[in-house]
Structure formats: C-alpha cells, structure tokens
C-alpha cells in the first residue's frame, strides 16, 4: 500500500464514519415492535434540529409515536453510541500507553470493581432507596474508580508507574474482586439473575437521565485523550525514546489513565460490563487506518459508537419480545471477528 493510498483512505474514513453513524442512529431508532416507518423517524429527528427543523412539515403519525421514538428509542441509541465511543477510545489509549495490543479498558480492574459495587448496591439497597435509579450506577462508578486508583498506586514506585506492573496488578485486583462478587451472587439467591444481567451489560430500561450522567464524562475524557493523540504515536516507540523526544511520559500516563478510567467507569456504571468493544474496535480500526492516533482515535470512537448501536438493536430484536443483554451480542460477534482479523493479518506488527 503506498502512501497516497493511505492518506486517501484515512480521509475517506473520517468523512464516511460520521455519515454512517447518522444513518445507523436513524435506522436503529426505527427498529422496534411499534413498526414506525424509517421516513417518519427521519422526519421526526430532522424536525428537532434547531433552525431548519421548523421548515420540515410534520408527517402523518400517531402522537405517541414521537414519545416512543424520543423517550424510549433515541435515548437508548445515543447511550449505546456514547458507551461504544468511550470504550473504544479508552481501549485505543490503553493499548497505546501499555504498548500492548491485548490491553482493553478493563485492564485496571474497573469492570470487576464496578461489578462488585453494583452487586453490593443491588443487594443492600435493592436499587430503590435514596438516590433511586442512580444508586447502582453511582456505587458502581465509585467502586470502579477506587479499584483503578488502588491498582495505579500498586504499580507506582516513587513518581514512576511501571506499565507492566500496572497490567499485572490490574489482573490480580480483578481476580480478587470477582471472587467476592461471585460469593455475594451465590449467597444472594433470587437476586443473582438481576446481578448477572447487569454484569453482562445492556441498555434495557436506560433513558435520557443516563445520557445526561454519561455525556460530560465521555466528552471530557475524549477531549483529554485527543489532546495526546500525537504523543501517543511517539510513546509506541517506547517510554524512554518518548522521553528523548521531549514528552513528559509520567505526566502523560497520569492524565491519560485518569481520562480512560473516568470514561470507562462512567460507561460501566450506566451499561454494565460490555465486553470486547474496547478490545476489538481499536484493533479493527487500526488495521483499516493504521496506527496514527490522530486518525485512529476518532475513527475508533465513531466505529465503537456504530458497533454498539447495532449490537443493541440486535439485542432488542433477536429474541423479541425477550431482550438479550447486549454484552452477549458483542462477545458473540467480537470473538470470531477477532480471530478472523488475527488470521488474515499479512504483515508483522499491529
């Protein structure tokens, strides 16, 4: 592949992906038991756009259709997009920081910490008191964050963080916390089903409230990550060579770990532990656009959003009227796809 090809391909991807995302949003908002037409959904959405919205005439649809589209479906689609984008971007950043293509956003034990927090919250609070629907997300978020802070400090010697130690500390802490979660689940009896559902991850029953919680974290997190996009390229040469190129590696690690952790923990808190998105999407996109983070990072975020919206649509319709947790869909698609990518790779390196 020559250089010209690469540049052309990168540009196209960055122009096409937002378009694909838009179409996906509309399409997946259409999908559902009410049978609302694609054009109606498109019209409804366009009418909500400021300035030009008022120019578009209202179509012939029952009044409750707008409620279904906006209050139920669109919120969910947007939430899936945010979670997908956040997980994929965090995955890109952690794979870069650890110079390890097997890293994913849960590497610091966030998922296991959040799962324990959520389990404890569901068992003790019943998910009903005080903070209402926010209690489980809040406790999950705090526990996920706490776990990653503990793991980070385990890997810290003085002012330096050894990335290989971080990886191992994350695995150890994760195993420790999962065993506690498993114990709680076994002894909880009838709640085990609810907890399991949360742990696999899904968007059932989520709405605009969750979007509002998540949005600031994802935007801030992504902004911080994107600031370091060029420096992330340099760190792939190794930490010392990056220092030789004038990068304050320790500071960069701190900021990026914090950004990835906040993004991931907030995503997990609203959707549960959705597997594979943060591992597969960075890989697949890297194979398409190459390792330059200035393109890889936005492309992965967009692709992650698209992928999770589609996976959630599948989760809704595959076994309708029953709903499958979206984490099962992502893992089912992700595993084989990952193996396919690894087998077809025809050049060395990632």
């Amino acid at each position, binding site marked *: 592949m020559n250089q010209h090809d690469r540049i052309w391909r990168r540009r196209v991807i960055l122009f096409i992906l937002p378009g694909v995302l838009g179409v996906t949003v509309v399409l997946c908002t259409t999908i559902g038991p009410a049978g609302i037409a694609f054009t109606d959904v498109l019209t409804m959405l366009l009418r909500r756009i400021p300035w030009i919205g008022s120019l578009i005439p209202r179509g012939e649809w029952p009044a409750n259709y707008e409620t279904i589209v906006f209050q139920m479906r669109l919120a969910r689609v947007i939430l899936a997009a945010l979670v997908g984008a956040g997980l994929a971007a965090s995955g890109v950043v952690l794979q870069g920081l650890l110079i390890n293509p097997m890293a994913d956003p849960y590497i610091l034990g966030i998922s296991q910490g959040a799962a324990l927090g959520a389990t404890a919250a569901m068992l003790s609070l019943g998910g009903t008191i005080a903070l209402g629907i926010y209690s489980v997300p809040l406790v999950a978020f705090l526990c996920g964050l706490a776990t990653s802070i503990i793991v980070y400090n385990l890997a810290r010697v003085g002012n330096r963080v050894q990335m290989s130690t971080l990886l191992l500390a994350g695995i150890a802490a994760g195993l420790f916390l999962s065993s506690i979660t498993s114990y709680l689940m076994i002894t909880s009896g009838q709640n085990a089903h609810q907890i399991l559902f949360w742990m696999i991850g899904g968007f059932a029953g989520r709405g605009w409230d969750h979007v509002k919680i998540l949005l600031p974290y994802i935007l801030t997190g992504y902004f911080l990550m994107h600031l370091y996009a060029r420096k992330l390229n340099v760190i792939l040469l190794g930490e010392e*060579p990056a220092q030789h190129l004038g990068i304050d590696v320790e500071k960069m690690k701190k900021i990026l770990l914090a950004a990835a952790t906040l993004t991931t923990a907030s995503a997990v808190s609203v959707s549960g532990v959705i597997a594979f998105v943060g591992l597969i999407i960075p890989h697949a996109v890297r194979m398409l656009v190459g390792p330059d983070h200035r393109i890889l990072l936005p492309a992965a975020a967009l692709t992650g959003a698209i992928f999770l919206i589609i996976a959630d649509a599948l989760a809704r319709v595959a076994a309708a009227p029953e709903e499958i947790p979206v984490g099962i869909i992502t893992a089912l698609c992700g595993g084989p796809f990952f193996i396919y990518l690894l087998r077809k790779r025809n050049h060395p390196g990632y």
Partner: protein
Amino acid sequence: MAMILKINDIECSYGTVKVLNGLTFSVGSGSFTGIIGPNGSGKSTLLKSLSRVLKPVKGTVLLDGRALYRMDPQEVAQKMAVVPQETAVNFSFTVKDIVIMGRSPHLGRFQSEGEKDFATARQAMALTDTLHLADRLITAVSGGERQRVIIAKALTQEPEIILLDEPTSHLDINHQIEILSLLQRLNRENNLTIISVFHDLNLAAQYCDSLILMNKGTVFTVGEPAEVLTAGNIKEVYGAVVLVRKHPVTGRPSIILMARDSQIGSKIGRVHVVCGGGAGASLLGLLAGQGYAVSAGVLNAGDVDWETAGFLDISMVDEIPFLPVSEQSHQKNIKLLADADVCILANIPFGWGNLKNLEAVSFALEQTKPVLIIEEQDIKERDFTDGRAGLLYNGLKKKGAVVLHNEAAVLKKLQDLLASKPPAGQ
C-alpha cells in the same frame, strides 16, 4: 572550545545500588566523544543521566550552561537527540511516520507537522540514505536500515548534540562503518556534537577525537584515543592483555586481542628462535605467552616476525631489509644463542641471504645446546641455494637436532627439556 555539556560530580543509583559514583567531565561543542569501559562500568547509566531520563541523586548536569533537570523536557529534546542500542517498534508505522516523529519537540500541542517539518525529515532521510524506505513499514526493514531510520529521526530533531548507546552493536561491519562514517561527517560538516558509548575499542579509536574510559562507576581517564587506549590502561580496567599498535592507514591506536592461553604462563627458561619472514610469529607469541624469556634472530627489519618480536618486547638481532645477514649481526645472533637454554629453528625457507642463520644453529649444537627443528615442509622445497642449505640442514639433524612437526610438540618438548634442567644460577 566551548563546553556544551558539563558533568559535575554526579552519582546515580538504581534503588540502593550505586552505579555512578562521582563523575566529573566536560564535553566540548562539536566534539566526537566516545564513552568506553567494561560491562557494568556504568556507561549506559551515564548516558541515561545525560539524556534527562535518570536524575542523578547528587551532582549536576549542565547543558549549554543550564541545569538539565530543571529544563523543560521538550526544550531539552530540541537540543539533544538520543539513539538507543536497538529500537523495537511493533506497530505498523511507515519509516516516514517514524522519522517525522523527530519533529515532536518542535511542535505545539495543537500543531500538526507543516511543510518545513516534512522538508527537515526528507533531508535527514537523504543524509542517512533512507529515502527509498520512506513508505516501507518499520516492521519490515532490516536491523541496519532500522538503525539508520532511528538516526534519521534523531537528525530530524535538529539537535546540537546527539547521544548514542552502542549504535552499531547489532550491525555487521559494513553497516557499522557506514553509520559511524555518517556520524563523523555530520560531526565535521554540521558541527554536531556526538557522544557515543562504544563496546568496540577499535571503532572508538577510529572515530572519536576524545575518549572517556570508565571503570566501576567513575572516570578512569579522559583524553585523546592514543592517550587513553594504552595496553596498560586496558590491562588495568578490562583485565585483558592486548597489543596496541598504530593503525597503518589512520594512525589511530589499533587494539589486537591476545588469545586467553597466550597470557597465562609463567614458565622459566630462555629460548632463542631462529626465524624470519613470518614463519616464527605465532611461535614467538606462544613462547612469550607461556612466560619463557625469548630472543630471536636474525630478522630483517619490517617483516612480520620482526614486527611481532617488537610487540612482544623480545630481544632480537635485526638486519636492514633485503640485505643478507652481515657478519656483525651473525655474531650478535650467536651471542644470544649462547645465552639461551634451547634453540628452535622455525620452518623458514633459505636463500643466500640467511644461510648464516643455519650456521648459527650449527654452532649452538656444537656447544651442546638442545636444538629443536620445526619441519612442516621438506627442506628440498625451501632450499634456494642449490643444495647448500639442505646440506647444512641435514647436518644439523645428524648432529642431534630434534625434529618436530608442529608448535604444540615444541611446547611439550620444551617443558620436558627445561623441567629437567636445574634453574639458572644453581
């Protein structure tokens, strides 16, 4: 010469292990300085502390008169580039992608590379002969090419000073010379200051104008290659016995390694070797290494045996090149022979010029000295005197000279002969 880098009494440790212990030296702007020393002497650690990676626990490093560890890392990277021993890149960047990363220290946070940055990168690639690799993946180029790419990246930083850690240790000799010659050219033409760690003393001697010899975390000595690379210094720091001679072409010191078994003996006894033209060189080395007092003669000045005897500090009788052995030299040779315990005749060819050497050996036999002849080739094939040398040679055999066929047999025979002999003076 202005000093670009001043190192004042630095100490560095890894945890509780102190690796550098009070180093002080300066590096002149525009110099090509080599850091040498045995494994574990702290060379790489020193380079780390000079490149703002490992902060010394004590002492200061000044870059252009400013404290290195108080400078912004980006500012340091605008002045200083580092080339590590080896760079592993597992991600599929192209060579061009890697080289342009060298512009990183010159770019602001929100800035992308502009036309000037690409021009600098292209120039660096032209200098390092990597332009043709521009679109290849860094994972798909050879070790030598990758190292040139990393040097191109370093040059793209437009540094004033470049630090290298054994930059050629993984490369074959052709690539070693190619890269070091490139550095030398940059040093001379662009006034780039170069500091490089070297494992290979000969490469260090060839390319550096100044050497820092390290030992056990301190500076052992600093100076020009000829002052630093002496057999004495190398023996003391590396514990290795070497020969140091002038490189015939460059005039720099050139280090010749001695085999381990040629430096351990402490045998007693005096041996005189009659040789010439290179037939005796390895035997002289072996005998000297075994610890025997060795003498040789008559040798024509400038031939290989003569040079070897010179290195080994062997007492010898020499003759003007291409002239036959004079009566005067012959007498001196006989005198050395008379002082020796054993005489050895190497497998040399005979012409009219060195026939006297055979007479000298014959004289030794008459004095009842043991004589060992190394005969690897029949005398008929190396007699260029119409049979005269053959006559004398066979005479030696008849008079009791011991004929042996290789050097190992000679060493064994010597041991037998000299063990049974009472030590001199009793």
